C-alpha cells in the first residue's frame, strides 16, 4: 500500500514539475514578444516626429527623415503584390479546382511549400542573376520582382486552402443551372473563399514589407528621392540595416524609428488578416 502511495506521489510530483516547465516555456515565449515590442516602443517612439515622414534620409551626422525610404518600400511592395497576386491566385485556383486530383498539383504543392520557406536571400541572388546582371545596374524593378517571387507561394498556399474549404454542393448547384466551370469558379468559389484569399494577400504584404535580404542586391539603396523604377531605390528595411550598423547616433535613432514603423505595419496587417478568418478557425 505504501509503495503504491509513494509511486502515486512521485508520478504526481513528476507531472507537477513537467507541467510547471510547460507554463514557464509559454511564459518565455510571451516574454520575448513583450521584450522586443517594449524595446521597439521605448527606443523608437522618442524619434517619431513629423519630419520622419516629410524629410529625406540625411547625410551622416545630420537630422532628417525617412520619406524616400518609406516611399520606396510602398512602391516596391505594391508592384510586388500586383505582379505576384494574380499568378498566385490563378495557380491556387488550378490546384483546388481544375487539377485537384492531378499529379501536377501534388508536385506544385510540394515545390510551393519549399519556396514558401526558402531563404529569401537566395531569391535575391536569383533576381540578381536574372535581372541585375543582364541590365548592368541595380534597379527598383528588380527589387519589386524579387518581392513578387516571395508573394507567390504565400498566395498560392492560402488560395488553395481556402478554395478547398468551399463545399462542393455550392459548385454543383452552379453547374446544375448550366454555368460553365470558370463562371462557377468566379461567381461561386471565389465569392465563398473571398475573405480567405484576402487574408493570404494581407499576409503576403506583411511578409514582404519587412524583407531586407532580397532587396540588398536588387534595389540596393538610395540616399535621395527617386521615383525612377529603373534606378536604385531606397527601402525602409535596407535603410534600417545601413543606419543601424553605422556609428552615427542620428542614423541609429532613425533606424529604431523605422523599425517601429515596420513592426506596427506588419503586426497590424497580421491582426487584420487573422480577424478576417477568425470565425472560421473557431468552428
Amino acid at each position: 500500500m505504501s509503495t503504491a502511495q509513494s509511486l502515486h506521489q512521485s508520478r504526481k510530483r513528476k507531472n507537477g514539475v513537467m507541467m510547471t516547465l510547460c507554463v514557464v516555456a509559454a511564459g518565455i515565449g510571451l516574454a520575448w514578444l513583450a521584450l522586443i515590442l517594449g524595446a521597439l516602443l521605448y527606443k523608437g517612439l522618442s524619434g517619431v516626429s513629423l519630419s520622419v515622414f516629410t524629410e529625406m534620409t540625411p547625410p551622416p551626422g545630420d537630422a532628417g527623415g525617412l520619406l524616400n525610404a518609406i516611399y520606396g518600400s510602398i512602391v516596391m511592395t505594391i508592384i510586388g503584390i500586383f505582379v505576384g497576386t494574380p499568378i498566385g491566385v490563378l495557380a491556387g485556383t488550378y490546384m483546388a479546382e481544375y487539377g485537384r486530383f492531378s499529379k501536377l498539383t501534388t508536385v506544385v504543392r510540394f515545390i510551393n511549400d519549399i519556396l514558401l520557406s526558402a531563404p529569401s536571400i537566395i531569391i535575391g541572388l536569383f533576381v540578381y542573376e536574372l535581372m541585375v546582371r543582364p541590365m548592368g545596374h541595380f534597379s527598383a524593378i528588380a527589387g519589386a520582382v524579387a518581392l513578387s517571387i516571395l508573394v507567390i507561394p504565400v498566395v498560392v498556399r492560402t488560395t488553395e486552402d481556402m478554395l478547398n474549404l468551399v463545399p462542393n454542393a455550392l459548385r454543383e448547384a452552379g453547374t446544375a443551372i448550366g454555368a460553365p466551370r470558370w463562371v462557377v469558379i468566379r461567381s461561386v468559389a471565389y465569392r465563398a473563399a473571398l475573405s480567405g484569399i484576402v487574408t493570404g494577400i494581407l499576409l503576403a504584404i506583411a511578409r514582404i514589407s519587412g524583407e531586407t535580404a532580397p532587396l540588398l542586391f536588387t534595389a540596393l539603396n538610395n540616399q535621395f528621392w527617386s521615383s525612377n523604377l529603373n534606378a536604385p531605390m531606397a527601402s525602409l528595411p535596407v535603410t534600417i540595416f545601413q543606419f543601424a550598423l553605422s556609428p552615427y547616433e542620428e542614423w541609429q535613432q532613425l533606424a529604431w524609428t523605422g523599425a517601429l514603423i515596420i513592426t506596427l505595419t506588419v503586426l497590424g496587417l497580421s491582426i487584420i488578416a487573422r480577424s478576417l478568418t477568425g470565425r472560421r478557425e473557431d468552428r
Partner: protein
Amino acid sequence: MTAVSEAATSSAMRTREATVRRFAVTDMVFRTATRLSAMLVLVLLGGVAISLVAGSWEALSKFGFSFLTTESWNPVTENFGALAPIYGTIVTSAIAILIAVPIGIGIAVFLTELCPRPLRRPIGIAVELLAGIPSIIYGIWGLFVFAPFLQTTVQPFIIWLFKGIPGLDSLFAGPPYGIGLLTSSLILAIMVLPFITSITKDVFDTVPAVLKESAYGIGCTTWEVTRRVTIPYTRVGIMGGVMLGLGRALGETMAVTFVIGNAHRISASLFAPGTTISATIANEFTEADGNLYTSSLVSLGLILFIITFIILALARYMLLRIDSRTGA
C-alpha cells in the same frame, strides 16, 4: 404562324450554340491560365537552381571540391573557401534548434492541455505574431539590446562558471564581445520558436480525443498522456516541424548578420565572432569586386540552397505523412 416560330427557334438555337461555344472558349482560356500559373511555380524553383549553378560556375570550376574544405577567405589574393561560413551556419542553427525544440513543445503542451480555454486563442496568436516580426527587427534588437546584455551579465558569468573545466572552458572562452556565435544562436532560437510551436500545436490537435481520454481513464497524469500518447502519436509531425524550423534557421539572414560579427574563421569558443553563409552574402555581395569574388558568394548561395532544399523537402515529406493519416 409555324414558320415564324420555327425561325425564332432556330435563331434561339443559333445564339445558344454561340453562347455555349463562347463559354467553352473562355473556360479553356481560364483553365490554361491557371495551369500555366501553377507551372510557373515549378519554373521559378528550376530557375533559381539553374541561375545559382550558372553564377557559381566560375568559382566552383576554379576551386573544385576544395571550396568546401578550405577555411581561408581572402578577397585580396582571391582565394576563397566556404568552410567557415558552413561551420557557422550549422553550429548556430543546431544550437538554436536544441534550445527552441523543448520550449516549443512545452508551449504546445501548455496550449493544448493546460491553458484555460478563453486564453488559448490570444496566447496562440501572440506566439504566432512573433513569427510575423521581420528578421531585421530581431537584428536591431539583438545588436542594441540583447548583445550588450549578454556581454555585461551573462557571458562573464558563464566564463567564470566554467573556468578551469577542461573542454567547457575553451567552448566558453572570453573575451565577452556580446556579438558572436552564441548570441546568433539565441536570436535564431527566438525566431524559429513560433514555427516549431505552431506546427507542434497543430499536430497535437490531430490526436484523437478518444486516445487521450482512454489514457486519462486508466489514471494517467497529464504528463504521462503527453509523453506516452500524444508525442508518440505525433512524432513524425513534430520532426517535420523541427525540420521546418531548422530550414528557417539555416537560411535566416538579417538577424544573424547583425550579431554574428562577420569573421571568416573557425573558433572553438562560442563567444567568438564567426559568420554564416547568408550573413557572408548579405555583408559582402554589393562590395564584391571581381567576377571570382561574386561567383564565390553565389557558390555559397548554391550550397545554402541545396542544404535548405533537402531539409525542407524532408520536413514536408514528414508533415505529409501526418496529413494523410488524419485524412484517412
